[in-house]
Structures are given as structure tokens and as C-alpha cells.
């Protein structure tokens, strides 16, 4: 049943949970061109999985498949035993480009509200939830501002709040901090680490930043392009919570970085 030796069922983290996400030998071809080939991958419940690879290796496609926005042309994508389909609210997807993902005509408040409106919540019941969510991402004072009046980091925080409004069991993040400056990115990395730990959500985090992947992930999957496939994967045995200063200096961190760097370099 299992393909290849890639899927590791054993885990180093405590509280091992059953796999919730499963890619079964998934392939995707668009217009005769193979985007993904033979992708098999399982993700445990509550796991923080980082997917890394050069652009064009299909890591974003992986998320779109799981969200049900694209249908695989081969294999199956299962979430909680069901085929992936759009509109299940327990999966939230966060986009890289906040200028496209937020509604420019709605305030931060209104953008978060959209997710609750889609769930059919009444106006009066929405208010407290929205303010709590905005407060949890540090934007309570910016509630009435439009996206164009917010910095990039703030806009990504609005997106995070909107995703959390869906109370997702799985959070899919597509290079969420790729367009932000280094300082903002670090702050948001620590925020998302904390949010993931608090909500116990399964996180699939796509990035092209090696250090970000190692810093955040329980496991890192490296992909290769033409066609997109999984090259290798690493368990990240670093202690949690990770520390901005100490973690990147640990020998294990440096070892993983070197190993991943070699893999990514080979793939180019």
C-alpha cells in the first residue's frame, strides 16, 4: 500500500497521532506537462510540516490539491479519509500575496468577518469573535483600517486572523512570509509557531527559505522540479518552543541546514 520508503510512521515527537493528510501516489499533468509525479506523503494530526524546494517544483500545487482547488490527474489526495474538495471550512489556506488575498474594499474587521459570514454566523455573534481574533494577532487597534492602509506584515496578520476564524484543523500556508522584510518575517514566524502550538492545528507550510523550514517544522520535505516530486525528508528533532537566538546555533540545526542545502542545490 505504501509507496517508497519515504513515509515514516515512527515519530520523535510525543503524543503521536494518526495521519490526517495523505497523498497517495499523486500526479498532476496540465496541458500534457507533468507538474507533479508520484507524490506520496502523509501528515500526522497536529504536525507542522514544511515543504521546501525551488520555484516550479509544485509545492504550491500540493496545497491547492489538498484544498480541493485542483483535482489530481493520478492518485488520491485524502483529508481525514475523504477526498479533498473545496468548501470544507476546517481547512484554511493562507496566500503569499496579501494584496490579492484580502478584499481591498473591506476593513481588517470586514475581512475577518467574511469567513464568519460564510459560516452563517449572525452579525451580533460575529463581533466578539472578530475582535478576539484581531486582538490575538495584535491588530485590535487597526480593526477599521483598510488593507491599503496597513503594512505588509499587518495584512498577513489579517489573513492569519481570517484563517483562524474558520477554526481550521488544517492550516495551509503558501510562502506566507515570502514577501515580508526580515524583521517582520521573524516576528510572524514566532507568532505562527505559537498559534500552531495553541490551536493544535496541522500545518502545511510551503517556503523556499531553508532556515525558516527548519526553524518552524517538525518535519521538512524537500521537493525537486521537472516534474515536481519529493526528493527527501528530514525529521526536525529540535526542542520546542524554538528560540530565535539559541535554536539556529544548535549543532543539530546546522547539520540539518547543511544536509538540506545539499539536497536543494542538487535539485537545481
Amino acid at each position: 500500500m505504501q509507496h517508497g520508503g519515504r513515509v515514516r510512521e515512527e515519530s520523535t515527537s510525543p503524543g503521536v497521532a494518526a495521519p490526517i493528510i495523505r497523498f497517495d501516489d499523486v500526479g498532476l499533468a496540465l496541458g500534457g506537462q507533468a507538474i507533479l509525479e508520484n507524490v506520496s506523503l502523509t501528515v500526522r494530526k497536529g504536525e507542522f510540516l514544511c515543504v521546501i524546494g525551488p520555484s516550479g517544483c509544485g509545492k504550491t500545487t500540493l496545497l491547492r490539491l489538498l484544498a480541493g482547488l485542483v483535482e489530481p490527474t493520478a492518485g488520491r489526495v485524502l483529508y481525514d479519509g475523504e477526498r479533498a474538495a473545496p468548501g470544507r471550512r476546517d481547512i484554511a489556506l493562507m496566500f503569499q500575496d496579501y494584496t490579492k488575498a484580502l478584499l481591498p474594499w473591506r476593513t481588517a474587521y470586514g475581512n475577518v468577518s467574511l469567513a464568519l459570514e460564510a459560516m452563517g454566523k449572525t452579525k451580533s455573534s460575529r463581533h466578539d469573535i472578530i475582535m478576539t481574533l484581531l486582538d490575538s494577532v495584535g491588530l485590535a487597534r487597526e480593526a477599521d483600517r483598510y488593507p491599503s492602509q496597513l503594512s505588509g506584515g499587518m495584512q498577513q496578520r489579517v489573513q492569519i486572523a481570517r484563517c483562524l476564524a474558520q477554526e481550521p484543523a488544517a492550516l495551509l500556508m503558501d510562502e506566507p512570509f515570502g514577501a515580508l522584510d526580515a524583521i517582520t518575517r521573524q516576528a510572524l514566524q514566532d507568532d505562527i509557531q505559537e498559534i500552531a502550538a495553541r490551536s493544535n492545528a496541522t500545518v502545511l507550510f510551503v517556503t523556499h527559505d531553508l532556515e525558516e523550514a527548519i526553524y518552524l517544522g517538525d518535519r521538512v520535505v524537500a521537493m525537486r522540479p521537472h516534474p515536481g516530486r519529493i526528493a527527501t525528508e528530514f525529521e526536525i528533532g529540535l526542542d520546542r518552543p524554538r528560540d530565535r537566538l539559541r535554536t539556529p546555533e544548535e549543532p543539530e540545526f546546522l547539520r540539518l541546514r547543511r544536509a538540506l542545502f545539499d539536497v536543494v542545490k542538487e535539485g537545481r
Partner: protein
Amino acid sequence: MADAAIAGATRRRPGFASRLVRRDWRGAVAPLLLLAFVEIVMDTGSYQSDSLAPPSQIAVAAYRVVLDGSLLTGTIETLGAALGGLAIGGMIGVVLGVLFGMSRAVDRLMMVTVESIRPIPSAAIIPVVLLAFGFGYRMEIFLILPGTIFPILIFTRSAVAGTEPCLLDVSRLMGLGYIGRVLKIVVPAALPRIFVGFRLSAALALVIAVTTEVVVNPQGLGSAIMVSEQKLDPASMYAVVIWLGIIGWGLNAALVWMQRRLFGPAGARGAEQ
């Protein structure tokens, strides 16, 4: 904080009237000189005409039609038909535009029909519509409809078809239904451009209303122009023509003002697309 910023932005803009005066008084010099010239030439010379009138007589005629109420009645009739046609046509245009823009199949199916009806000048169907409805508001509004439907339809359709795909993904993932997607994502995103179509339609509505009145329909300002012409009263005729110019300018100015108010800060991005 946010409120303060927005309030500051509006406070910096001076009032509509003062802006108008400050910006436009130099532009008024040339036309005023021209008017004075025409007045002097026509009063001093022994000029007689059934088709021209000196500005002073036009002003007197204007005063007369304002006093006897005929200008007001005509304005109500013309604007009533134009705005009625704009409202009905606008609704039809937005609904069709959304349908066409959301579905490529519907779009392909209907666009040939639309493109073949659209070029027919509204004046060409005046006889048919006259037979069907007789004189009055109904025939005039019916003639205005194509002029208001099509600009709005075409702007809506292209704006809807160009909705940011990422926003559609967002709404699908949240589980918003078709209606929710249209009302909460597609239409608000398209609104700034729909409004551009609305402005075009408003201008056309007035043009068609007056044309219809000049040609057949015995009501409104267009009819007033014809009646004055036939009474060999060019002064009254020009008074109404000038008043129509003011109405057209005012209609556009009101819509531009609305556009700024509605889409100023948040819709700027949508309007550029």
C-alpha cells in the same frame, strides 16, 4: 487612529463650490468675452434672424420660462424618463453582466446576440416603439433602455470576468455559495468599473431622452425646443438648450462626486484594473 486619518484626508479637500470657483474662474474669461462680443454685434447691427438671438434676449426668455413653470415641468419630464431608463437599464445591465462574466458558456452563447443588437441606433426603432407604446414616458424609457443597458452590461461583464482569481479561491475555500460569492466578492470588486459604465449610460440616457422628445414625443425639454423653434422664438429655444447643457454637466458632476465618495480610498485599486 484610522478614523483620524480618514477624517484628515477629507478635511484637506476644500468644499465642492469653492473648488469650482477657484479652479474655473479663468476658464470663464474667454466664453464671457465671446458672449459680450456677440451681444454687441447683434444689438448694434441691424441684424434680424429667426434662428439666432442675442444673449440678453436669451436671458429674458430664460427668466420667462422659469417663471411660467414650463422649464421645471420639462425638466421633470426629461429627467424622469432619463433617470427611469437609467435605473431599469442599469439593473438589467448589471444582472446580465454578472451572468455573462461569471460563466464563459453563457458569455459565448449570448455575446453574438448582444453585439448584433447593440449597434442599432435607438432613433432607428422610434417608429416601432411609437406603434407599440404611443406617446409618453413608456416609449421614451423603452428607447433609453438599450443606451443604458449596454455600457453597463459590457463594463460589468469584463470587470466580473476579471475578478481576482485569488479572491474567488478564498471564497470557495470558505464555503461561500454562488449568491454569496456574487454579492460579497464579485460585485463589490467590480463596482468601481460598473460605475464607469453607469456614467456613460447616464450621458446616453439624457441624449436619447432629448432626441426622442425632439423627434416625436410631445413632452419634456426636447419638445420645448421644437415648440419654440416652430413659434420662431429662438431666444426661448436657446434658453432651453443652455439649460440642457447645465443639466448634462450637473448630472456628470454629481456622478463623479458619487464615484469619489464611494470608491475613494478603498476602491481606488478596483478602479485602476
